[in-house]
Each structure stands twice: as structure tokens, then as C-alpha cells.
């Protein structure tokens, strides 16, 4: 890790002033669960690290007069999970529970999770986000890479596990920069697919800081997420899907379907969502949504299996949102305690 200057601002404006300084390559430190790894591997070598954890107002979760939930950029996944707010955000709750690492939950932040850098092993070994305009991925081992939105140079997948769930909930982010300048973006608009070296996977410019994620009141909107993981816990899922559904008397009135780990951005499965509208929620409509979600998929040499996984993830997310059995391993009853289970004590 290269030496760096460490700054601990007390206010939002101090923070953005530090971040906007053109003479320094500055980065934001919140939980540090991703940043530190990237710095240790010299994937990023900042001159200045700006710790935002001490900024008053960023450690809080609160509800405004419209019922929207505001989560500050220093709020940990665990604080969010343990707050009463996630009870109305089933998809987000399921995702954080699925991270299943006490360390990551306690140390990682909600906003930091949304802004994690891609796990693409070519990126993480210093070849840049595009890794030779995508050639390294195409010719290399791409088992975890994109199946959607991958027709140009970017082949990595957006790593955020929470983003699909929060996008499905209609979340916004609040972004500030020096001069009391603030803007609000729909969460999905925070992300972009870079096509040239130097571009990143989000639209933030130097000096900008995401201070909050704002999640509108869900009222009776249904939601669920479904991650297909190779093993439990903190490792990247293979694919995921999150859905937000407004239904009336069993018929879908409005739906959002967002895919994770399949494209350089959290992927809005617009067709699948639109075609759910007017349909009842059942195995058949859920299956159809899954098939439609991957209609435009273009597998690389080693990741065709992700197409099937994505279909299944969408199907199961829809079924889960509707409170129906989704048929996976998690629905299995635990093994009955046979007479000798557990260590034999002698």
C-alpha cells in the first residue's frame, strides 16, 4: 500500500472540499471493506483518503415527512438491517442477511456497498476496468462476467448486491459537491457502462460525494430478492434478481425487475417487468418473467450457465415476493436429528 494523506472532515462541505482538490487523487473511506483491499493490491493508489464516518448526519437513518427513509453514507449494513426500517424493505433485508458475514455487515456501509468496485479479476489485477477493451475477458476466463450489456468493451459485472433491491424499491441518491451544490439521482442512474479507459462504472465526478440513499415509502408494495450463490456468505453471488411489485387483488399493476451480477450496471429487465403487468402472480408468470429477463443475453465463452441462473433468480424472486414457495435449497426443511447426529461424546 502506498503512503497517503488521511483526512477526517466533520462536515459534508469539508469533505467535498477535500475531495475536489484537483492536486490530489482523493478517495472516500466509509467502512473501507472494499477500499483497503484495492489499495493493498495497488489497484488504486490515492494520495488522500477522506474518512466520512465522523460527519454528523451521515451516521443516521431517518424518515422524512413523506415517509421516505434516508440512509446516511456512514450507516453500516448492520445498523440498517437492525433498524425497524428494513421490515418494510423485504428485498434489501434479504440481501443484507445473505451477506452473512458479521465483519462485512458491521464494518461495511450501505452506500459503500452500492459503490463497490467491480470484482472482475482482470480489473483487480491492474488491467483496468475494460481490460484491453474487453479482449482479456473475451479470450480469458469469464465465468463470472457479464451476459447482458456486454456488447461493447465493458464485460465486468456491477458488484453491488444491494443495488438491485434498492432500485426495485425506487431509491434515489443524494449527491453533493462544493458550493452547497446538491443533486438527486434515481439510483439506477448512478451507474454507467464505461466504454473508454479512464471512465468508471458510476457517474460521479471529482469532488462529488453520495451522502444519502433515499428510499421512498413502500406502503403495500411487495418486494423480494433472490441471489444464486456458490456457497453461503460474503462471496459474490453468481447472479441475482430483485423485484418490486404493486399488485391489486392478485393482479400485477406495476413491477420493477432488476438483475444483479449480470451486466456492468444493475440491469433493468424492462420487458420482463412490463409483461408482468396485468398478470397474476404464479409459477407460470414468474417463469415467463425469467425467460424474458434474459432475452437479450449474449453469453461469453464460459458463462452461458448464468443465463439459466438468471431466469431462475427472476422466477424465484417473483414467487418469493408473492409469498409463494420458490423451490430452492433454502426452502428445504432441516435434516431431522437422527439418533447420532452431532459429535459423539464418549
Amino acid at each position: 500500500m502506498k503512503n497517503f494523506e488521511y483526512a477526517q472532515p466533520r462536515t459534508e462541505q469539508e469533505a467535498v472540499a477535500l475531495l475536489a482538490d484537483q492536486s490530489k487523487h482523493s478517495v472516500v473511506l466509509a467502512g473501507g471493506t472494499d477500499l483497503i483491499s484495492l489499495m493493498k493490491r495497488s489497484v488504486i493508489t490515492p494520495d488522500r483518503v477522506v474518512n466520512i464516518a465522523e460527519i454528523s448526519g451521515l451516521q443516521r437513518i431517518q424518515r422524512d415527512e413523506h415517509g421516505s427513509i434516508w440512509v446516511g453514507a456512514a450507516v453500516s449494513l448492520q445498523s440498517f438491517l437492525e433498524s425497524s426500517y428494513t421490515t418494510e424493505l423485504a428485498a434489501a433485508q434479504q440481501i443484507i442477511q445473505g451477506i452473512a458475514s458479521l465483519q462485512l455487515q458491521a464494518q461495511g456501509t450501505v452506500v459503500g456497498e452500492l459503490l463497490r468496485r467491480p470484482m472482475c479479476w482482470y480489473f483487480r489485477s491492474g488491467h483496468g476496468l475494460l481490460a484491453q477493451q474487453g479482449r482479456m475477458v473475451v479470450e480469458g476466463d469469464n465465468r463470472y462476467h457479464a451476459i447482458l450489456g456486454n456488447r461493447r468493451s465493458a464485460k465486468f459485472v456491477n458488484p453491488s448486491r444491494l443495488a438491485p433491491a434498492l432500485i426495485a424499491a425506487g431509491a434515489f441518491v443524494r449527491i453533493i459537491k462544493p458550493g452547497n451544490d446538491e443533486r438527486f439521482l434515481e439510483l439506477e442512474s448512478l451507474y454507467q457502462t464505461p466504454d473508454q479507459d479512464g471512465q468508471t462504472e458510476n457517474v460521479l465526478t471529482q469532488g462529488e460525494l453520495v451522502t444519502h440513499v433515499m428510499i421512498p415509502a413502500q406502503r403495500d408494495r411487495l418486494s423480494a430478492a433472490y441471489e444464486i450463490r456458490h456457497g453461503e456468505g460474503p462471496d459474490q453471488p453468481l447472479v441475482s434478481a430483485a423485484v418490486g411489485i404493486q399488485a391489486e387483488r392478485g393482479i400485477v399493476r406495476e413491477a420493477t425487475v432488476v438483475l444483479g451480477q449480470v451486466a456492468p450496471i444493475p440491469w433493468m429487465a424492462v420487458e420482463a417487468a412490463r409483461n408482468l403487468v396485468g398478470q397474476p402472480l404464479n409459477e407460470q408468470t414468474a417463469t415467463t418473467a425469467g425467460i424474458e429477463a434474459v432475452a437479450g443475453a449474449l453469453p461469453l465463452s464460459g458463462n452461458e450457465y448464468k443465463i439459466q441462473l438468471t431466469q431462475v433468480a427472476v422466477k424465484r424472486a417473483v414467487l418469493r415476493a408473492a409469498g409463494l414457495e420458490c423451490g430452492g435449497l433454502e426452502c428445504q426443511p432441516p435434516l431431522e436429528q437422527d439418533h447420532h447426529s452431532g459429535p459423539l461424546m464418549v
Partner: protein
Amino acid sequence: MAEVDYRWPENHKMRWIGKRVDRLDGLEKSGGTAKYTYDVNLPNQLIVRGLGCPHAHCNVLAVDISEAEKVPGVVYIHRLNAPGPNDDPVEIRADGTLLVAVAAENEAAAAEGVSKVKVQYKLLDAFTADHDLQSAEANGRTKPAGGGIELDEALGEPGDDEDEEEWENKVMQHLFDTSAHVVEGEYGIDSITHCCLEPHGATVHWVDGKLKVYLSTQNVSQADDGFAGALEITADDVDVTCDYIGGGFGSKFQPNYWGIAAAEISKVTGRPVKFMLTRDQELKIAGNRPSGYIKVKLGADANGVVRVWDSLHWGTSGFNGSTVAVGNIPYVFRPKSFRRKATGIVTDNEPSVAWRAPNHPQACAITQTAYDDLAAKMGVDSLDIFLRNLENIDTPEKAPVYAEQLRIAADLINWRKHWHPHGKGKKSGAVVEGLGIGIHKWAGTANSSNCLLKIHADGGVESYCGTQDLGTGTRTVCAMVLAETFGLTLDEVKVNIGSSTYPFSGASGGSTTVGAVTESHRRAAQDALAKVLDLVAKKLDVSADILDAVGGKIVARDYSGKEMTWKQACSLIGIQPLEVNSSYARGTASPLSSENVAGCQMAHVAVDTETGQVKIKRMVAVQDMGLIINRKTAESQIYGAMIMSIAAALFEQRINDPKTGVFVNSELADYRLPRLGDIGNLVVHLHEPESERARGVIGLGEPPAISGCTAISNAVCNALGVRVPTIPLTPKRVLDALRTAKG
């Protein structure tokens, strides 16, 4: 003094041996106060970081260190696998090979120094497709790796005028033609890498011309030789210390070239030097396990007993081009007629090193899967096929032990209740369940070991032995043997291990440690006790033969009521402590230790047929190990081994980039390992009938790490009715296998 009769106490007299005892150093380890090599920091030390080659195969033409030398804090730069200014290029055959080492005042400066080293590479063709025999042949990357044929004696011999090979082919063909069942299959298991939580490395310093080394090692007593040889000094000028080690598993026997480099840098700079590998370097260059892929044809009689086996296997051990040893094919089972051949593949990877039970897990996984496929083909219970084939195994005397172990394991996993013909289980949602078996063997022979035992006149007892505690509880086991022999409590004896200045004890590899240290400690303790008893006998005016050390006292068994406390007894020793040196030499027949164990494991899995995810519901291990010293740590060994088996069966895999050969998943974020939620319910049964127990101590490190993978693979096959040919059984591979089966 009469000659000491080395033996274990009778079962009913054992007060410590066989009991469940917490590790004596458990609190230090779990509380973080135990000092591992990585925790050793010496005053004024330099930190070293190595520059790893980013290419799998290349020539290093030139290395320019001038910019690196200018980095503030960089003190010295050492060339490892790099040419000097006028040298020929150096060929690199593995991603991560260390080129130069940068020593600096702190880690940041060392890392920055590494980033400033400029290297000119000439890329060469990289080949890492170890699973692809055809491609390896086309690229000239194969090497013969042995093999041969053995035919049932009853089949006769070729006539004088017959070509031997033609005759053999004819006989093999005849055996297959007359078999009731023939199975052909392909199986494989990928290379996995050591990923010791504490990476390899050392902290060293020179004191008055002597090298003091803190080394993360499984080989305290002999690592000094490694340093001495490389540094052209004698071993008496090297002291190696290793109090705790964060994982070795066969990869930490040597100082390695980075350890030697630390010593050289320390010599040049006159300062202590700490050189530990980074995480990705640890996975790339510190050790891996060879891969194995096999084509098998077997023929069985109507009963499912395999009578003929024919196989070709290949795989890689890295750039030295070997594979899984052919002698273990097929594993444990030994049909009367078999032909086996092996081909090594030269890939641009680090050579493999020993990995817990070298060769056995892979041999088991690529051959006992074929036996299970025989059961699938016949539509009969796999357990019956395994039992019936015990009539042809390579250690026939073990057949009854395996049979009994299989019976116990089947009971523990409720085999008869849960088993169903392959692929015919009940589906719940998308999920099917299945059961599988694997059986294994291991020698576990005690290594050589010496113990210096001191008994002080105040009753204090201390032992010195150049062994090491890999985390498995060696200190505790030594203390239990001493306490048992002297009739004391564990806190009344002090065990000193982990230094090459102590009497020699063999490396901890191959399940040899518990046998070794219990041999040397029991012998030393019995020797010392005999001397103490002689003194006591004289004092109490009884024969030493009737004296016992028990409950902190020396007691006469003649009901005379004559006794004295341990302290009183020791006061008879005089001013100088009583010192005893006792030895055990590997291979010496002894009533205290033995070798050769059997074991079996069974797995109960659930598989999601839509996602390819595999979940362990329950695993059962039944294992014999002769006399158990510490029941708790013995069980703990087996739990750990089962978890490693789950890791290898479902997760672990070295992934080389198909184009560049680079090891892409060398960070733990990408190198998948099981998490707590992936482990399932593990059941351990220590198999200890008197027939096994009476054999004495046998090592346990390796055997339980062998057949778990196979049991899981067979269970997945039982669930799906489709073989997922290659381990690890990732979701992708499960889905691919299902798709292929559908056609």
C-alpha cells in the same frame, strides 16, 4: 535399575490418555496472544516485499531497480529470479515467481519500491490446460508418468511365441467381454492450492555470526539445515523458532528461497528482516496439489465385484510435469486384473508440494467414483457395491475393518432410510437428495523423535523436544503423556517445543507427529520415572516393581500404606535435576505406536437441479487411529479434514487464464472456500475397538482428509442420476452435466 518396558498403561488405569482435553494453548490462540511468525517484529527490522512475475511463462530480459532505490525508505534490493546487468535472461515458468525483493523501513515503502522496479519481459507461450490431454500432446507438453499391468495369475502367461503386449490386450479384452457389467467413465479433480491463513515467511536476524530465524514451519528441527546449506554455514550456526504456525498442510517444510533471501538481506544490511508472502503470492507460489483426470473402463461380475480395471490418467504438478501417482490407481480397491497408465502434463505453474495426504484424495476421487457408477448402472445400492468389493482391496487384512466402519457410518447417516437408486429420489421443488461413500487408507507411521526430560528436586517436570504444533494440539498431547506417566496434572508438567535448539524431532508431515512425540515423551517419562522409583524404593524399603505414580504420589501396591508425595520423591534426586534423553527412531517396532489405518466417509447432499447448487446436509466420518491420546483434538482433526474435503469437493480450484496462463483467482475473494453455512452437520465417529486400540498410537492428520470429496461426488451422482465428472462440483458444472445428460 531394570530395563524399562515401554508400553501404555492398561486401559482402566489411564487418567489422561483417551480423555477430552482442551488445548493447553487454546486460550492464547483464541485470545490473540499466541505469537505466530507473522506476529514477530524485531527492533529496527526491515520489511521485505517481493515483486512477483505477472506472467506465467516468459523470459526476464532485464531488471532496472534504479527508480525503486530512490523511493524514500527503501534500503536494499535483492535479486531473486532476475538477471543481473550482464546476465542471460532468466526463464520464468509460473505466475507469481518472485523476481526481486525490496527491503524497506516499512511496508508502504517496500510496496512502493516494488511498484517502481522496471522489468523487461519477453513473453513465451503459456500452457495451463492440464485437463486437455489432446492439446497437451499437440503442444509437446506431456511426459510419461508410469503405469503397468497386473493380471490375475489364474489367467496364465503368454506362450513363448506370443507378443506379451498383444497377449495382454487379448486377455483384457476377454475379461471385459465376459464381464456382466462394464462401466466406462471420465472423472477429474482440479488443482487446488495451499492457502495457509498465515502465509509462508520468516523473520531473521544475525547475532554474533549466528542466524536466528522465526519461521512459519512444519519442520523446526531440520529447517536449520535448509538455511545452512543455502548460506554455506553449518547448521549449528542456525537457530529456528516456531511457537505457533497458521497452517502448513505439507507446504512448510523448507525455508524456501524467500526465507534464504531474508537471511541474505539481513546479512548485507546488518538489520533484522521480515519477509512474509502476500496473499496472492501465498496462493501462487507457496504450494499446490496436482490435478488428475482419468478415462476408466471397468468390468464386474454379476454381483458387482470388479474383476478388471483399465485406466489412463493425466494431470499436472506444474512445470515439472507429473500428476497423481499411478500406484494408487484404483484407490484402496484392487481388482485381480488391472492396467493403469499415467501421463504428466507440463504446465506453466509452480510445482506442487505435499498437500495433506499427497495423491490420496485425488486417487480416491477419480476411481471410487467409477465404482459408484457401477452401482448406478446396476441399479443397486452403492453401499452393497463397496462392501462386496472389499474382497479385492490392496490391504486384504483391513477388509473386516472397512466392513465394520461402513456399517457404523451407514447407521450414523441413516443410509438405509435415505438411500434410493441413482436419480430416483423424491424431488422437492427443484431439489433432490443423495448419498455417497468413499473409503481410504493411510500409514501414519511415527516419525523419529527425541525428548530431553528434566525432573527437578522440587518436583518440577519439563520436557524439550524439537517438534512443532501445527495447531493440532501437539503440546497438549506431550503434556498428557507426561502427566499420565508421572501421575500428575497437566499444569504440573511443562512442555517446550518449537525450537531447533531442542532435541531433534521429525517434521510434522504424513501424520507422523502424534506417534513421534508420544513415543519420545512416553519413553523419556518411563525412563525418568524408573530412576525416581528406584530412589523411592530404597527410601521406603520396598521393591521398585510395586511402586506406582498416581494422583501426585508414589504409592506401594502392597497395601503397606507406604507412599510419598511426588515432591518428596523428587527431593531424593539431589541438587542436580534428573535429566533423561530418550529417543525413538522411525521404523522401530514398538508397542507404543503402529501404522496403517482405514476409514470411510459418507455424505448426504441436496442438489438444486435448476441452479446446480450443492448443499451438504450431513457428513459422517468413521476413522480408526489406534490408541487415541486426546479425544477432543482427534475429533477436531477430523472435523477440519471434513471441512477441507467439502472445500475441495465444491469450491476450491486454481483457475488459470486460458490465454495467458495467469492464476486469476489467487486472492481469497476469488478463491472460493466454504463458509459456515456450507458445512452442514458433521458427525465424527472414532473407531476404537480393542483390536485397533491395542496397536498403539497412529497418526490422524491425513486420513480423514481423503475420501470426503469422493463421498460428496458420489452423493451428488446419487441425487441427480448423472455424474458430474470433475471436482469441484460448481453450479456451472452441475448444470453442464445435467444439460449433457439431457442431450
